């Protein structure tokens, strides 16, 4: 009996694009998330468009604070839950992003709680998959620098309260506006401002302390 081989990455990607067109993603170009979500209430397949639009952002966000395999699960689960709870979607914002991030945040929080690996995940080394990429050495150097800088910042981030850190992460990693952050966390915009301001002050203090310690060591 001929057994089947595992699909390659290229095949998987092809299958995604096939599904995209099957599910009418191209048809939805130019339509707002609100409109697509309205369709998805009647026809679940329409939800595929929401997935295509936002999956990358959600995965990138989750992978910032979780090991990649866990982040992938969280991202995937976000859309399955969103699909099942699509009736709870409140239109009016034009974008489903805050709603999706709200779901994702809860999953990420759960995963962080459950996984003792979360901090290891944050500090994990980059896996450079394609070593034949031009300027490979430069890429590695850049990433190593980024890792070093982030690792220096990490203790400061970990010292923040969960609420402050969540706002900061949404701001930095999801590139959200204050309004979107407020909608995601279901708090007033003023609260977002004050949390971000508090985070900024704490980071400033921590940076000062690090700098002072650095000077002392240099002397």
């Amino acid at each position, binding site marked *: 009996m001929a057994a089947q081989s595992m699909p390659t990455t290229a095949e998987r990607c092809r*299958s995604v694009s096939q599904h995209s067109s099957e599910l009418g993603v191209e048809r939805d170009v130019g339509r707002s998330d609100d409109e697509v979500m309205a369709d998805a209430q009647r026809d679940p397949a329409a939800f*595929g468009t929401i997935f295509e639009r936002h999956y990358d952002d959600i995965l990138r966000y989750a992978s910032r604070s979780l090991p990649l395999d866990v982040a992938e699960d969280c*991202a995937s689960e976000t859309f399955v839950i969103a699909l099942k709870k699509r009736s709870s979607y409140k239109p009016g914002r034009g974008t489903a992003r805050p709603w999706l991030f709200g779901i994702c945040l809860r999953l990420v929080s759960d995963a962080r709680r459950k996984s003792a690996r979360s901090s290891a995940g944050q500090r994990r080394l980059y896996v450079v998959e394609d070593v034949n990429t031009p300027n490979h050495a430069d890429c590695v150097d850049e990433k190593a620098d980024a890792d070093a800088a982030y690792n220096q910042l990490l203790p400061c981030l970990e010292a923040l309260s969960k609420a402050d850190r969540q706002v900061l992460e949404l701001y930095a990693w999801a590139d959200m506006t204050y309004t979107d952050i407020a909608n995601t966390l279901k708090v007033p915009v003023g609260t977002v401002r004050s949390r971000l301001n508090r985070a900024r002050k704490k980071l400033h203090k921590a940076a000062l302390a690090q700098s002072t310690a650095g000077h002392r060591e240099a002397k």
Partner: protein
Amino acid sequence: MSKFNKNSHTDRTNETDGAEFDAQVDVMKSHNQLDSSQVHTAKATAREQLNRAIAEESRRPAARGRRPLMWVGGVAAAAAAATLVAMNVSPPNDVEVRPAQPTATSTPTPQPTTPAPTSQATKTNPSPPTSPSSATASSQPSTEASAKKPGVPTGDLVDPFSLASIEQEITFRYAADLVDGSTCKPEYKKYFATVNSMRNLKRTPVTVRAMRAQTRFFWLGDTTREDLQHIHTAILSLPKEDVPWGSHPPFQPWGTYFDASPHWGVDCDGKAYRQLFGADSDNDEAARPPMPRQGSGTLDKLIAAVMSSTEVKTAAIGFNKCYSAASQQEIDSDWIVPEAFIKYSGAAPKPHDPEQIWTCYEASGLQAASRKVQAQWQAANPDVVKKWKADPAFYASKVAAAEKMIAQEEAKAGK
């Protein structure tokens, strides 16, 4: 440059602080950036999962509408199952023989459903079925029969932890979490334990991709007749439209694996296979077992046959759901997890917990059609092997079966 300075709360800070904060935000941004190939790969897998959820959601209203009937049917099926056992009925011989259709790309679509599930059992016929003909009789629900047979579930099937509920509501990952709760019915804990071991496997590097495709999987090894009754009744209590059928390229790693459908299979030893299906294995295309069609009652007959067979000592039922062509392809390759391990890693699987994984790996450890794989597996699982050897009769029977199988494989290969 981040948006910090552009936002209105900058009036509470000074420019130096703002610049410093922007730099810190930039550091955060540059941390752990995924490259596009990583995103694409993950996206494909996530899309498959979403497509399954979409398919489920698309069918939900119909399923919901029929649920009460099905629950009644589940209870009726329990009674019918008891009747079957009491009658000691023989395997079916009225099965329709369909040519194998190895079309991995076909998407299973829900077939017309029967109005209510009735457990159709076959009349006694001790000879192996060789042709698709003969009569069947429907076993009518009989509460008396179930009352006579201890251990047969009746109305208590209607509980949130029945396989039917789990199949519909919970992915295997979360089912595993339920095992930790004390509310799970004891007879189902065994199944969950297996599910739990699957969850653990999921984290291993080799299967991490493969297992993602398998959101629902029940694997029962070393199954007793009572176990099969539970499964029988649980599967019968599922709305028919939740049991999709379709074609499936045969995947048959050790010679006697019967794959009845893409999403349902029975594994039993060779003798039982012949008794049930009149063929040595599904290697024989002409005598390939029937592909049960939804609503045809064949599934009922098949399970009834397995239950009533005097030859089936060890049987396993895998139950899975998948709807997209892409996912189907993936599930085809990982239908049985141990084989997926062996197939893709080239090495023996290393169970996370030998106790939990026992049922799952029993087959691959002893029945693998390759001495090398068998030896690898057993070397990697000394505790499990020790447990096997604690039951000499069981171990001897398995070794004998494995020896025979290996000899056949070697003879075929001309060794």
